[in-house]
């Protein structure tokens, strides 16, 4: 009888702190644990007792990479709770700022965190020595995303301009117009990004996933839509808690999610893409066809191509929104608190981010629940590793360890986000 373990104490090139443990006994994978040991952060606890207007700024602090997602999910939930609808140009500006965040997050992950895996480099610094122009393009693509978030969000890190009901200030037409040349460059260059990533070598690996994403009748989803899957799920976002269940496992400070009475599911770029391909604009579909990924993509390693296609989409969508932009008369609609429960679910770069709040008639938060995408993907990542390692047992251990880490990075996990929500129970006598 032989036992082998693959252990990575600290995963590199993921946001936050996590580890990996795989146990193999007699050529069978017997245990896989994606260990998340970053301390819990209790955001849901300290949202209670705060005003409904504070949720976007408090929850934005959960993540330095995707603060807009937290702001968007929280404002939509609060607006539903108080019966307010934000429409027209304010709605468009919300899509615009989300474009900026997708660009920032996807470009960072593709160039700095994931591409080195495929090319055999230990990190992006080593890759930059051989691919300087590619990496320089990545840095510029990212910078333009930062700029877009700054113009609409007030600043690029933890933006401060988003509020329940709209924005504190809306940009002038001129402020957006000056971005156009850079955005056009970004759109052209992200086509190169798609071609570059599509040319990478991919491990053969496919599984029968249940993909879950928002679906909107008219557009590729950012802030609105029903939750759908490729296996028949089609629900209003308010049915999230009845449909999905979160579970605490010993090796993770983040809760693991699954579909009730089913199993793990997959959120993020691949899920969005497979469920909403028909909503992508012609330019994105054309490039997808050119590189041969216009059908469903079931190899999670190819998520790097899909992130690049979504970067192209975000650039194209930003240009479309700016072209049609007319500054609204007021930066926000009137808001008045009233007792109720509201639900928000938006597409963070890494997948659906669900918020639910109950507030009283003065707008004080009585209860908050947040399900971030990385927590939802944890179980799917562990299942991937179990299957992947089983098929790759012949690889030398260092190469197998490397590919396991690469398989985790397929999901661009944001561990810092995922651990905000562990429930703490204190027993006192």
């Amino acid at each position: 009888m032989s036992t082998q373990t693959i252990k990575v104490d600290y995963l590199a090139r993921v946001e936050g702190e996590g580890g990996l443990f795989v146990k193999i006994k007699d050529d069978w994978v017997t245990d896989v644990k994606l260990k998340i040991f970053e301390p819990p952060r209790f955001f849901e606890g300290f949202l209670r007792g705060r005003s409904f207007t504070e949720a976007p700024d408090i929850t934005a602090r959960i993540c330095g990479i995707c603060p807009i997602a937290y702001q968007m999910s929280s404002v939509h939930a609060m607006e539903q709770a108080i019966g307010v609808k934000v429409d027209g140009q304010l709605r468009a500006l919300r899509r615009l700022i989300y474009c900026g965040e997708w660009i920032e997050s996807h470009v960072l992950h593709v160039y700095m965190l994931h591409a080195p895996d495929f090319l055999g480099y230990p990190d992006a610094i080593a890759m930059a020595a051989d691919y300087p122009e590619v990496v320089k393009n990545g840095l510029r693509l990212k910078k333009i995303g930062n700029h877009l978030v700054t113009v609409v969000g007030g600043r690029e890190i933890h933006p401060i301009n988003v509020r329940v009901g709209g924005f504190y200030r809306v940009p002038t037409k001129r402020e957006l117009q000056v971005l156009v040349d850079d955005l056009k460059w970004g759109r052209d260059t992200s086509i190169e990004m798609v071609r570059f990533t599509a040319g990478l070598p991919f491990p053969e690996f496919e599984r029968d996933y249940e993909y879950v994403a928002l679906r909107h009748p008219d557009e590729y989803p950012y802030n609105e839509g029903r939750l759908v899957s490729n296996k028949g799920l089609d629900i209003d976002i308010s049915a999230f808690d009845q449909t999905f269940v979160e579970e605490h496992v010993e090796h993770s400070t983040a809760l693991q999610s699954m579909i009730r009475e089913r199993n793990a599911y997959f959120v993020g770029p691949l899920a969005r893409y497979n469920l909403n391909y028909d909503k992508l604009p012609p330019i994105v579909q054309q490039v997808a066809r050119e590189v041969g990924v216009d059908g469903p993509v079931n190899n999670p390693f190819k998520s790097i191509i899909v992130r690049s296609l979504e970067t192209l989409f975000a650039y194209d969508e930003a240009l479309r929104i700016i072209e049609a932009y007319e500054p609204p008369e007021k930066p926000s609609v009137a808001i008045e608190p009233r007792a109720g429960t509201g639900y928000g679910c938006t597409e963070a770069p890494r997948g659906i981010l669900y918020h639910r709040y109950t507030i009283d008639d003065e707008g004080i938060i009585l209860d908050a629940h947040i399900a971030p995408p990385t927590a939802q993907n944890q179980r799917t990542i562990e299942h991937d590793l179990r299957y992947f390692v089983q098929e790759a047992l012949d690889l030398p251990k260092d190469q197998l360890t490397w590919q396991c880490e690469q398989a985790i990075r397929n999901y661009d996990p944001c561990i810092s986000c995922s651990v905000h929500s562990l429930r703490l129970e204190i027993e006192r006598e």
Partner: protein
Amino acid sequence: MLCIGVGNIYRGDDGVGPYVAQRLQNLQLPGLVACEASGEGTDLISRWSDFRCVAVVDAVISGAEPGALIELDVRAQPILSSMFATSTHAFGVAEAVEMARILGQLPEYLRIYGIEGASFEHGCGLTQIVEETADQVVQRIAAEVERLEARGGAD
């Protein structure tokens, strides 16, 4: 000169970078722009790409006594990512410096001031010893700005 204060003001001594940036901003020195940053590496590269002279201030964990100051002339020596383990970013300060070095995008003058932190617990405020060092760093950077300005520009 651009001074980038890296850190999170809600995590104790990790806020030392933003503290220094704010103090420098308040001095309104000619030739100095100060800003805060989270420490995400590509953001740092894009911020310093428009400047010739840059100072980065960040909390470090090197095993030295709390409040100890490590001043690095980045053009003269590589820097260790292990020192900047205060960040949860996968691509942080050290990676930004080494990436920029390879791409030929390091500013002509780039100093990193690493201040050894004592506590990185949740909550605002610096420990006293860290604040004392931070005040010295403010004076040191202000003097550097004056010196560079006198030599013909600290931009």
